């Protein structure tokens, strides 16, 4: 199981780094985040796993939005017309077949790489027995966060607030946009 997950994560990260199609890159990044969250779950870090899944999914949705708004539309001027034509002649049958083939290819690739990793794990890098974190309840994590790392938590909150306010200031339209 761990070998399959590591293979899936490595293949997805490789595709996310080197593919050209923006949608495929975003999908590969999503699979990477989900795979890393699953590895956390196997290691016993349920809390970080859930956070990782949520963050990866939200980041993927934002990446799709980004790729549609400011990536594909202005990618190249000569592609504007075919892009619009492609949107207008969208066919659900081809889209469904494409999705099915993509999912099938992903699972086959992950299973292949996972099998290879599983076969050579004794001589490569995988541990023979997984360490498992025994003390992992939310009570303990919350106590550590609010007692030992309170200053770091406050600094993180201030950083997020500054990011939110600064992003709002940068992204808001000025008077010239309004006119």
């Amino acid at each position, binding site marked *: 199981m761990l070998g399959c997950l*590591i293979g899936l*994560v*490595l293949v997805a*990260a*490789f595709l*996310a*780094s*080197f593919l050209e199609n*923006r949608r495929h*890159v*975003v999908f590969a*990044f999503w699979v*990477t*985040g989900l795979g*890393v969250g699953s*590895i*956390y779950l196997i*290691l*016993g*870090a349920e*809390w*970080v796993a859930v*956070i*990782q899944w949520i*963050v990866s999914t939200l*980041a993927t949705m*934002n*990446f799709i939005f*980004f790729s549609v*708004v*400011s*990536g594909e539309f*202005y990618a190249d001027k000569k592609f504007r017309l075919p892009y619009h034509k492609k949107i207008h002649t969208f066919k659900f049958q081809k889209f469904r077949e494409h999705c099915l083939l993509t999912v099938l290819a992903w699972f086959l690739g992950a299973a292949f790489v996972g099998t290879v990793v599983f076969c050579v794990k004794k001589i*490569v*890098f*995988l*541990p023979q027995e997984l*360490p498992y*974190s*025994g*003390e*992992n309840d939310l009570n*303990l*994590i919350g106590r*550590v*966060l609010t007692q030992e*790392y309170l200053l*770091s938590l406050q600094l*993180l909150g201030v*950083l*997020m607030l500054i*990011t*939110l306010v*600064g*992003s709002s200031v*940068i*992204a808001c*339209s000025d008077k*010239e*946009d309004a006119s």
Partner: protein
Amino acid sequence: MIWLSAILGSLGIAGMVIGKSLLKILIGMQLLILGASVLLVYSGIVTQVPVQGHVFGFFIILGGIAQLVTGFTLSMRVFIFKHRYLK
């Protein structure tokens, strides 16, 4: 597992260096942060202090969110400038 985080970070750096669009650079940064959080969580578990590893991974993930928000904001600003001046 340390190799996994190292490969994830290397792929992120490679994506940032090779990528020509802002999307690829942002995804490269996210992969880098992903590798760092994997390393922190795993090292916390191995060294018998799992909660500290989880907390550091949590901090790293939230720092990545801040980076992502800033990148999206800058990309939106670039989109507005392109829409206004390069139309």
